[in-house]
């Protein structure tokens, strides 16, 4: 089984990230200097990886080339990347993709990647604290820190 991670972000200003940033500022998180957001997808599938990635990025429901940018994998930088996902998975995404011809998909999950540019001694700990205070609800979501 092969897997691939897709990250999708907006070309236009991201109102959700801007609103979240202002709310966090108001909540007193002055160490947060910038906040970005990407839609996160992880797929497990059979067959050729390049072929799959080409298909999935052109399937139109995940990426609209008029307003989105996408990448398979993340570029390195100084930020702390946190993925928030619902604990309970539903089959809506995989069913939609299969109905659009992506028959090789075996597993699909989605979430939100938050990229936190933090000015603090312990960037990871501060970013986790920020995420827990607004970006997730621990009663139905989980967080995974990528770095």
């Amino acid at each position: 089984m092969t897997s691939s991670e897709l990250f999708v972000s907006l070309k236009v200003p991201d109102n959700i990230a801007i609103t979240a940033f202002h709310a966090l500022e108001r909540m007193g998180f002055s160490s947060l200097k910038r906040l970005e957001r990407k839609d996160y997808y992880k797929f497990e599938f059979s067959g050729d990886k390049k072929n799959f990635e080409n298909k999935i990025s052109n399937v139109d429901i995940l990426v609209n080339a008029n307003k989105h940018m996408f990448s398979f994998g993340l570029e390195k930088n100084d930020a702390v990347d946190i993925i928030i996902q619902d604990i309970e998975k539903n089959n809506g995404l995989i069913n939609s993709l299969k109905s659009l011809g992506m028959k090789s998909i075996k597993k699909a999950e989605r979430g939100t990647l938050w990229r936190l540019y933090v000015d603090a001694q312990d960037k990871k700990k501060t970013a986790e604290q920020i995420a827990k205070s607004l970006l997730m609800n621990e009663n139905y979501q989980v967080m995974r820190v990528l770095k």
Partner: protein
Amino acid sequence: MKKPNIAVMYFPGNNCETETLKAVKAAGMNGMIVRWNTKLNLSEFDGYIIPGGWAYEDRIRAGAIAAKDPVMNAIRKEAGKGKPVLGICNGAQVLIETGLVPGLKDKVEMALAPNINPFISGYYNTWVRVKNVGRKGAFTNALGKDEVLHLPIAHGEGRFVTRDKSLIKTLEKNNQIIFQYCDENGKVSDKFPITPNGSTMAIAAISNKKGNVMAIMPHPERAIFERQVPYSAKTDKKTDNIRIFESMKNYILKK
């Protein structure tokens, strides 16, 4: 006797403030729509309703941004004095995200998670029945014990959940579970379609421990007059649902 004066709070993205205000007035109270950035002194109101809609477009998740809005600090303070605060649908999501409901610890103890529905993923509209299973509180004192109300729902995230396994038992013990989804005979079931969203223990509404703050997912304000109810007469005769708002009035007048 002076009519209670209710602030129907308006956040950018709400869309139920007008019918909520109509319900307030139909129940014999005064009220006004109060914007989130108001300069008014909120302590001058006798009670507060956070209506339905999409406050701040549900950015991040439903109710999350509005819950952190400075105006909610003022409402928290008034709730602490015992004034009634009702959150309907998106307003319920805001109250859960503030932690005011269930309000047992100084943190967010629950979530209104995305619906689980065997047929439709996401937003779901239907009519449901809910049973008054709580005590005679700020929003139920004019209702009979076990009385069943017929109400519409319209939400994508209405499933009461918690990761604290002991919390639901505590809510039961404290009589904080106010309404549960049920069939037309009042039989509670957490199975679809009676519970339309997969909510834990068929919960449709929860209050804080004192009972003066309630988060309810169905929309009583959308079914106050007979003409708003499917297959009913096109009249302005009030339905039983008005009694949630009349309870709020009674509670304020008795205080």
